[in-house]
Protein backbone atom coordinates (compact mmCIF):
# COMPACT_ATOMS: atom_id res chain seq x y z
CA UNK A 1 0.00 0.00 0.00
CA UNK A 2 1.62 3.24 -1.07
CA UNK A 3 1.39 6.63 0.60
CA UNK A 4 -1.51 7.86 -1.55
CA UNK A 5 -3.60 4.79 -0.71
CA UNK A 6 -3.05 5.50 2.97
CA UNK A 7 -3.99 9.10 2.40
CA UNK A 8 -7.24 8.00 0.70
CA UNK A 9 -8.22 5.59 3.49
CA UNK A 10 -7.44 8.18 6.18
CA UNK A 11 -10.85 9.58 7.13
CA UNK A 12 -9.61 12.01 9.78
CA UNK A 13 -8.96 14.90 7.36
CA UNK A 14 -10.53 16.03 4.12
CA UNK A 15 -13.59 14.45 2.56
CA UNK A 16 -14.72 10.82 2.24
CA UNK A 17 -12.66 8.12 0.44
CA UNK A 18 -15.16 8.22 -2.47
CA UNK A 19 -14.37 11.87 -3.20
CA UNK A 20 -10.65 11.28 -2.76
CA UNK A 21 -10.63 8.38 -5.23
CA UNK A 22 -12.55 10.39 -7.84
CA UNK A 23 -10.23 13.37 -7.35
CA UNK A 24 -7.26 11.05 -7.88
CA UNK A 25 -8.65 10.03 -11.29
CA UNK A 26 -9.82 13.48 -12.39
CA UNK A 27 -6.77 15.43 -11.24
CA UNK A 28 -4.48 14.53 -14.17
CA UNK A 29 -7.19 15.26 -16.73
CA UNK A 30 -7.83 18.73 -15.29
CA UNK A 31 -4.11 19.56 -15.24
CA UNK A 32 -3.66 18.37 -18.85
CA UNK A 33 -6.69 20.41 -19.95
CA UNK A 34 -5.37 23.52 -18.17
CA UNK A 35 -1.95 23.11 -19.78
CA UNK A 36 -3.63 22.62 -23.18
CA UNK A 37 -5.70 25.80 -22.78
CA UNK A 38 -2.55 27.77 -21.89
CA UNK A 39 -0.27 26.32 -24.58
CA UNK A 40 -2.84 26.45 -27.42
CA UNK A 41 -4.14 29.87 -26.40
CA UNK A 42 -2.98 31.45 -29.67
CA UNK A 43 -4.72 28.79 -31.81
CA UNK A 44 -7.99 27.92 -30.03
CA UNK A 45 -10.23 29.78 -27.55
CA UNK A 46 -8.60 30.17 -24.18
CA UNK A 47 -5.30 31.62 -23.10
CA UNK A 48 -3.14 32.28 -20.11
CA UNK A 49 -5.83 33.60 -17.81
CA UNK A 50 -8.46 30.87 -18.41
CA UNK A 51 -5.89 28.07 -18.35
CA UNK A 52 -4.28 29.45 -15.21
CA UNK A 53 -7.60 29.50 -13.41
CA UNK A 54 -8.27 25.90 -14.52
CA UNK A 55 -4.87 24.82 -13.13
CA UNK A 56 -5.57 26.71 -9.90
CA UNK A 57 -8.97 25.01 -9.61
CA UNK A 58 -7.17 21.65 -9.78
CA UNK A 59 -5.12 22.68 -6.74
CA UNK A 60 -8.28 23.95 -5.02
CA UNK A 61 -9.98 20.59 -5.67
CA UNK A 62 -6.98 18.78 -4.18
CA UNK A 63 -7.06 21.02 -1.11
CA UNK A 64 -10.80 20.57 -0.60
CA UNK A 65 -10.68 16.79 -0.98
CA UNK A 66 -7.47 15.93 0.88
CA UNK A 67 -7.24 18.73 3.44
CA UNK A 68 -5.00 21.72 3.60
CA UNK A 69 -1.78 19.79 4.41
CA UNK A 70 -1.91 18.05 1.03
CA UNK A 71 -2.59 21.30 -0.81
CA UNK A 72 0.17 23.15 0.99
CA UNK A 73 2.61 20.27 0.39
CA UNK A 74 2.02 20.62 -3.38
CA UNK A 75 2.29 24.42 -3.37
CA UNK A 76 3.14 26.30 -0.20
CA UNK A 77 2.39 29.96 0.38
CA UNK A 78 6.04 30.82 -0.25
CA UNK A 79 6.11 28.83 -3.51
CA UNK A 80 2.87 30.51 -4.61
CA UNK A 81 4.22 34.00 -4.03
CA UNK A 82 7.54 33.18 -5.72
CA UNK A 83 5.72 31.75 -8.78
CA UNK A 84 3.38 34.75 -8.81
CA UNK A 85 6.25 37.24 -8.77
CA UNK A 86 8.33 35.34 -11.32
CA UNK A 87 5.35 35.09 -13.68
CA UNK A 88 4.76 38.83 -13.49
CA UNK A 89 8.49 39.53 -13.96
CA UNK A 90 8.66 37.18 -16.95
CA UNK A 91 5.73 38.99 -18.58
CA UNK A 92 7.38 42.39 -18.10
CA UNK A 93 10.67 40.92 -19.37
CA UNK A 94 8.96 39.73 -22.57
CA UNK A 95 7.65 43.27 -22.97
CA UNK A 96 11.08 44.78 -22.40
CA UNK A 97 12.71 42.35 -24.85
CA UNK A 98 10.44 43.92 -27.44
CA UNK A 99 12.78 46.92 -27.39
CA UNK A 100 15.21 44.83 -29.46
CA UNK A 101 12.76 45.33 -32.34
CA UNK A 102 11.75 48.89 -31.58
CA UNK A 103 8.99 49.25 -29.00
CA UNK A 104 7.45 47.82 -25.80
CA UNK A 105 5.77 44.42 -26.41
CA UNK A 106 7.11 44.15 -29.95
CA UNK A 107 6.71 40.58 -31.22
CA UNK A 108 10.44 39.91 -31.50
CA UNK A 109 10.39 36.18 -32.29
CA UNK A 110 9.78 34.67 -35.77
CA UNK A 111 6.07 34.23 -36.52
CA UNK A 112 6.18 30.70 -37.94
CA UNK A 113 3.44 28.87 -39.81
CA UNK A 114 -0.17 29.50 -38.74
CA UNK A 115 -1.94 26.63 -36.88
CA UNK A 116 1.39 25.28 -35.60
CA UNK A 117 2.09 25.06 -31.86
CA UNK A 118 5.39 26.93 -32.23
CA UNK A 119 4.07 30.02 -33.95
CA UNK A 120 2.98 33.56 -33.14
CA UNK A 121 6.35 34.50 -31.63
CA UNK A 122 6.28 35.94 -28.17
CA UNK A 123 2.52 35.38 -27.68
CA UNK A 124 3.15 31.77 -26.62
CA UNK A 125 5.77 32.88 -24.08
CA UNK A 126 3.50 35.62 -22.74
CA UNK A 127 0.64 33.12 -22.38
CA UNK A 128 2.87 30.79 -20.39
CA UNK A 129 4.04 33.61 -18.11
CA UNK A 130 0.47 34.74 -17.45
CA UNK A 131 -0.64 31.14 -16.90
CA UNK A 132 2.00 30.56 -14.20
CA UNK A 133 1.17 33.89 -12.58
CA UNK A 134 -2.59 33.34 -12.53
CA UNK A 135 -2.27 29.75 -11.25
CA UNK A 136 -0.13 30.84 -8.33
CA UNK A 137 -2.10 33.96 -7.49
CA UNK A 138 -5.60 32.44 -7.61
CA UNK A 139 -4.44 29.54 -5.46
CA UNK A 140 -2.83 32.01 -3.06
CA UNK A 141 -6.09 33.97 -2.83
CA UNK A 142 -8.00 30.75 -2.11
CA UNK A 143 -5.52 29.85 0.63
CA UNK A 144 -5.64 33.35 2.08
CA UNK A 145 -9.45 33.41 2.20
CA UNK A 146 -10.07 29.86 3.40
CA UNK A 147 -7.14 29.07 5.67
CA UNK A 148 -6.01 32.25 7.21
CA UNK A 149 -9.53 33.61 7.41
CA UNK A 150 -9.57 33.04 11.15
CA UNK A 151 -9.27 36.66 12.16
CA UNK A 152 -12.64 37.43 10.57
CA UNK A 153 -14.19 34.52 12.40
CA UNK A 154 -13.09 35.72 15.79
CA UNK A 155 -14.01 39.35 15.02
CA UNK A 156 -17.55 38.34 13.97
CA UNK A 157 -17.89 36.28 17.14
CA UNK A 158 -16.83 39.27 19.26
CA UNK A 159 -19.41 41.54 17.64
CA UNK A 160 -22.17 39.08 18.39
CA UNK A 161 -21.10 38.87 21.99
CA UNK A 162 -21.14 42.66 22.30
CA UNK A 163 -24.60 42.92 20.76
CA UNK A 164 -25.92 40.27 23.17
CA UNK A 165 -24.60 42.21 26.11
Amino acid at each position, binding site marked *: MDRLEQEIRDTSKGMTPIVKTIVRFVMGIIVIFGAYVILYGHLTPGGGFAGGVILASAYVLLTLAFGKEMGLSKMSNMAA*SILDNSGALAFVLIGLLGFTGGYFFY*NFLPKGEPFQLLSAGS*ILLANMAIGVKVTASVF*AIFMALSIFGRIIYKAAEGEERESEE
Partner: protein
Amino acid sequence: MEIILLFLLVFMIIGSIIAIETKNLLSSVISVGVVGFSLSIIFLMLGAPDIAITQVVVEILILVVLIRATITTDNTAIEGPRDTFPFVSSLIFFGLFLMFAFFAVQELPKFGEPLMKVSKEYLRTGAEKTGATNIVTAVLLDFRAYDTLGEATVLFTSIIGAFVILRRKGRKGKAETDSEKFGILEDEDIKQNFEGF
Protein backbone atom coordinates in the same frame (compact mmCIF):
# COMPACT_ATOMS: atom_id res chain seq x y z
CA MET B 1 -32.08 35.18 -30.16
CA GLU B 2 -32.75 38.56 -28.61
CA ILE B 3 -35.72 37.12 -26.71
CA ILE B 4 -33.45 34.52 -25.07
CA LEU B 5 -30.96 37.27 -24.25
CA LEU B 6 -33.68 39.39 -22.66
CA PHE B 7 -34.94 36.36 -20.70
CA LEU B 8 -31.41 35.71 -19.39
CA LEU B 9 -30.96 39.38 -18.48
CA VAL B 10 -34.23 39.40 -16.50
CA PHE B 11 -33.12 36.16 -14.84
CA MET B 12 -29.81 37.81 -13.84
CA ILE B 13 -31.61 40.83 -12.41
CA ILE B 14 -33.92 38.59 -10.35
CA GLY B 15 -30.90 36.62 -9.14
CA SER B 16 -29.04 39.73 -8.04
CA ILE B 17 -32.12 41.13 -6.23
CA ILE B 18 -32.50 37.81 -4.36
CA ALA B 19 -28.77 37.88 -3.56
CA ILE B 20 -29.16 41.26 -1.89
CA GLU B 21 -32.48 40.68 -0.17
CA THR B 22 -32.22 37.13 1.19
CA LYS B 23 -31.40 36.59 4.86
CA ASN B 24 -29.32 33.46 4.40
CA LEU B 25 -25.72 34.12 3.32
CA LEU B 26 -25.35 30.76 1.54
CA SER B 27 -28.42 31.28 -0.68
CA SER B 28 -27.13 34.77 -1.38
CA VAL B 29 -23.81 33.35 -2.63
CA ILE B 30 -25.63 30.82 -4.83
CA SER B 31 -27.82 33.58 -6.30
CA VAL B 32 -24.65 35.46 -7.24
CA GLY B 33 -23.62 32.27 -9.05
CA VAL B 34 -26.85 32.46 -11.10
CA VAL B 35 -25.76 35.88 -12.37
CA GLY B 36 -22.31 34.65 -13.38
CA PHE B 37 -23.47 31.51 -15.19
CA SER B 38 -26.20 33.39 -17.10
CA LEU B 39 -23.54 35.91 -18.12
CA SER B 40 -21.34 33.10 -19.46
CA ILE B 41 -24.29 31.73 -21.52
CA ILE B 42 -24.82 35.23 -22.93
CA PHE B 43 -21.13 35.48 -23.88
CA LEU B 44 -21.36 32.08 -25.58
CA MET B 45 -24.46 33.13 -27.56
CA LEU B 46 -22.84 36.37 -28.66
CA GLY B 47 -19.91 34.41 -30.10
CA ALA B 48 -17.24 35.07 -27.49
CA PRO B 49 -16.03 31.60 -26.39
CA ASP B 50 -12.81 32.97 -24.88
CA ILE B 51 -14.64 35.14 -22.37
CA ALA B 52 -17.27 32.44 -21.79
CA ILE B 53 -14.58 29.91 -20.76
CA THR B 54 -12.95 32.42 -18.43
CA GLN B 55 -16.31 33.45 -16.97
CA VAL B 56 -17.39 29.84 -16.23
CA VAL B 57 -14.08 28.87 -14.65
CA VAL B 58 -13.74 32.02 -12.55
CA GLU B 59 -17.38 31.74 -11.47
CA ILE B 60 -16.94 28.15 -10.26
CA LEU B 61 -13.79 29.06 -8.37
CA ILE B 62 -15.33 32.19 -6.82
CA LEU B 63 -18.38 30.17 -5.74
CA VAL B 64 -16.17 27.55 -4.10
CA VAL B 65 -14.14 30.22 -2.31
CA LEU B 66 -17.22 32.17 -1.20
CA ILE B 67 -19.08 29.09 0.04
CA ARG B 68 -15.94 27.99 1.85
CA ALA B 69 -15.62 31.45 3.39
CA THR B 70 -19.29 31.72 4.38
CA ILE B 71 -19.82 28.27 5.92
CA THR B 72 -16.85 28.73 8.24
CA THR B 73 -18.45 31.77 9.85
CA ASP B 74 -21.46 31.55 12.12
CA ASN B 75 -22.63 34.90 10.82
CA THR B 76 -24.99 33.45 8.19
CA ALA B 77 -28.03 35.62 8.88
CA ILE B 78 -28.21 39.37 8.46
CA GLU B 79 -30.49 41.04 10.93
CA GLY B 80 -31.50 44.57 11.80
CA PRO B 81 -33.38 47.21 9.84
CA ARG B 82 -31.98 48.67 6.63
CA ASP B 83 -30.69 52.24 6.73
CA THR B 84 -32.99 54.58 4.87
CA PHE B 85 -30.51 57.27 3.80
CA PRO B 86 -28.25 55.06 1.64
CA PHE B 87 -31.32 53.41 0.11
CA VAL B 88 -33.00 56.71 -0.81
CA SER B 89 -29.80 58.32 -2.11
CA SER B 90 -28.97 55.29 -4.26
CA LEU B 91 -32.52 55.37 -5.67
CA ILE B 92 -32.10 59.05 -6.56
CA PHE B 93 -28.76 58.44 -8.26
CA PHE B 94 -30.17 55.45 -10.11
CA GLY B 95 -32.99 57.66 -11.42
CA LEU B 96 -30.46 60.31 -12.53
CA PHE B 97 -28.41 57.61 -14.22
CA LEU B 98 -31.48 56.31 -16.08
CA MET B 99 -32.32 59.85 -17.24
CA PHE B 100 -28.85 60.50 -18.65
CA ALA B 101 -28.54 56.96 -20.02
CA PHE B 102 -31.78 57.47 -21.96
CA PHE B 103 -30.14 60.26 -23.96
CA ALA B 104 -26.75 58.57 -24.20
CA VAL B 105 -28.06 55.22 -25.44
CA GLN B 106 -29.77 56.86 -28.42
CA GLU B 107 -26.35 57.96 -29.67
CA LEU B 108 -24.82 54.48 -29.39
CA PRO B 109 -24.64 52.19 -32.43
CA LYS B 110 -27.47 49.63 -32.69
CA PHE B 111 -27.21 46.16 -31.14
CA GLY B 112 -25.39 43.85 -33.53
CA GLU B 113 -24.01 46.69 -35.67
CA PRO B 114 -20.85 47.83 -33.91
CA LEU B 115 -18.41 50.48 -35.11
CA MET B 116 -15.68 48.55 -36.88
CA LYS B 117 -13.07 51.24 -37.55
CA VAL B 118 -10.20 49.79 -35.48
CA SER B 119 -11.46 46.21 -35.33
CA LYS B 120 -11.52 45.88 -39.12
CA GLU B 121 -7.81 46.66 -39.26
CA TYR B 122 -7.11 44.08 -36.54
CA LEU B 123 -9.22 41.43 -38.28
CA ARG B 124 -7.62 42.08 -41.66
CA THR B 125 -3.96 42.15 -40.62
CA GLY B 126 -4.06 40.25 -37.29
CA ALA B 127 -3.15 36.80 -38.60
CA GLU B 128 -0.24 37.87 -40.77
CA LYS B 129 1.17 40.44 -38.34
CA THR B 130 1.15 38.24 -35.24
CA GLY B 131 0.96 34.68 -36.61
CA ALA B 132 -1.74 33.82 -34.04
CA THR B 133 -4.93 32.28 -35.45
CA ASN B 134 -6.97 33.14 -32.35
CA ILE B 135 -7.65 36.81 -32.97
CA VAL B 136 -8.62 37.44 -29.33
CA THR B 137 -5.21 36.34 -28.09
CA ALA B 138 -3.56 38.29 -30.89
CA VAL B 139 -5.28 41.47 -29.71
CA LEU B 140 -4.75 40.75 -26.00
CA LEU B 141 -1.08 39.84 -26.13
CA ASP B 142 0.21 41.69 -29.17
CA PHE B 143 -1.77 44.76 -30.22
CA ARG B 144 -3.03 45.54 -26.73
CA ALA B 145 -0.39 43.83 -24.57
CA TYR B 146 0.01 47.02 -22.59
CA ASP B 147 -3.59 46.64 -21.32
CA THR B 148 -2.88 43.03 -20.35
CA LEU B 149 0.11 44.25 -18.36
CA GLY B 150 -2.24 46.58 -16.48
CA GLU B 151 -4.61 43.66 -15.85
CA ALA B 152 -1.75 41.58 -14.45
CA THR B 153 -0.79 44.51 -12.22
CA VAL B 154 -4.36 44.68 -10.86
CA LEU B 155 -4.24 40.96 -10.00
CA PHE B 156 -0.81 41.38 -8.41
CA THR B 157 -1.98 44.29 -6.26
CA SER B 158 -5.10 42.44 -5.13
CA ILE B 159 -2.97 39.53 -3.94
CA ILE B 160 -0.68 41.82 -1.99
CA GLY B 161 -3.81 43.30 -0.37
CA ALA B 162 -5.27 39.88 0.46
CA PHE B 163 -2.02 38.70 2.00
CA VAL B 164 -1.54 41.88 4.03
CA ILE B 165 -5.06 41.87 5.46
CA LEU B 166 -5.60 38.14 5.95
CA ARG B 167 -2.18 36.96 7.11
CA ARG B 168 -2.01 35.38 10.52
CA LYS B 169 1.45 36.38 11.70
CA GLY B 170 2.26 40.02 12.22
CA ARG B 171 5.57 41.60 13.10
CA LYS B 172 7.20 40.53 16.31
CA GLY B 173 5.90 42.44 19.33
CA LYS B 174 3.03 44.04 17.49
CA ALA B 175 1.38 40.65 17.00
CA GLU B 176 0.76 40.22 20.72
CA THR B 177 -1.13 43.48 21.12
CA ASP B 178 -3.01 42.71 17.93
CA SER B 179 -4.15 39.35 19.23
CA GLU B 180 -5.45 41.03 22.39
CA LYS B 181 -7.32 43.64 20.38
CA PHE B 182 -8.76 41.59 17.54
CA GLY B 183 -8.53 38.05 18.88
CA ILE B 184 -6.26 36.32 16.40
CA LEU B 185 -6.55 32.58 17.01
CA GLU B 186 -3.52 30.38 17.50
CA ASP B 187 -3.31 26.91 16.01
CA GLU B 188 -4.15 25.16 19.30
CA ASP B 189 -7.34 27.20 19.73
CA ILE B 190 -8.41 26.33 16.22
CA LYS B 191 -7.80 22.64 16.79
CA GLN B 192 -9.90 22.74 19.94
CA ASN B 193 -12.74 24.89 18.67
CA PHE B 194 -13.16 24.05 15.00
CA GLU B 195 -12.41 20.39 14.63
CA GLY B 196 -14.67 20.07 11.59
CA PHE B 197 -13.02 22.87 9.65
